[in-house]
């Protein structure tokens, strides 16, 4: 079964972008996924509650920016999600449920 926390369009997008880039600022993540601030914030909160990402402020020279980092658990669960997707695609090709 596909992970219900990850298997949602916006959360999947956010987690996959973080899986690829590991750490990104909130602004970057929001723009990368073409989401509104509110939408990105609420989905990141859900991911954080599930322990898949971790938010924190980093000093970048001018200000303290909100950054998100994918956790080890998050990376592991994303890989498991990809495996499940692969299994489903393989099953669909083979014509079995």
């Amino acid at each position, binding site marked *: 079964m596909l992970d219900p926390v990850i*298997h949602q*369009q916006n959360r999947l997008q956010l987690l*996959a*972008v973080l899986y*690829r*880039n590991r750490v990104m600022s909130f602004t*970057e993540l929001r723009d990368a996924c*073409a989401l509104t601030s509110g939408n990105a914030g609420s989905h990141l909160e859900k991911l954080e509650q599930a322990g898949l990402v971790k938010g924190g402020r980093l000093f970048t020279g*001018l200000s303290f920016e*909100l950054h998100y980092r994918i956790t080890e658990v998050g990376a592991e669960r994303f890989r498991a999600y990809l495996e499940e997707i692969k299994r489903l695609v393989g099953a669909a090709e083979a014509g079995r449920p």
Partner: protein
Amino acid sequence: MGVLGEAAEPKLGLPDALTTIERALAYDAPLRRRTEGLTWILFGLASALVATSYVSLTAAGVSWSAFYALWLGVYPLIVLGGALLAWRIPGVLHGGVALEARRIVTGALVLAAVLFVQTEVAWWRGPSALGSAFGTMSAVVVPWAFLGLVQWSRLSGLGRRLTWAVGGVMAVTAAAALLWVEGPAGEADDAFVFALAAGGIPFLAGVWHSLRA
């Protein structure tokens, strides 16, 4: 029935999930930052070039219409070149649309419209108004500086208060530059001041953003 106040999440099909994963995994944040930085360095250089050319051309006795012909011809080409560069580099593409290219082109169009209106107003007031330092400052420097500030604010994730604080410093600097041009520096230093004021902010934003990549 769902819980009151909690909207049901739409179902995500397998093809959509695959497309989402493919797009998201192609997003290279450091490359994108470098490209954005490079694009804005070009923007800063182009702005400085335009400001300098204005001062040089008017000093050489070339008319305003010639300057605008140059501006309208060269500047959009440089901006579009930068946008095309951003669009052509893999990883910048997002959702089938080059987001950054679209922003820059939109910004350039808005800027062109602002400059066009300002020129028309200044022209209507009389050619002498165009030649004044104030006219130049309002027509050439301020829109570019403002767009640079907005872009800097977006790239750096500055808070609203800090953005206005930077805006305030810029306004004071612009006023000081204006007084300096009118006063002790004289006409000979106009090109430098205008180039610095017009191109400095986006140029620095680009360099700073590239260094963070």
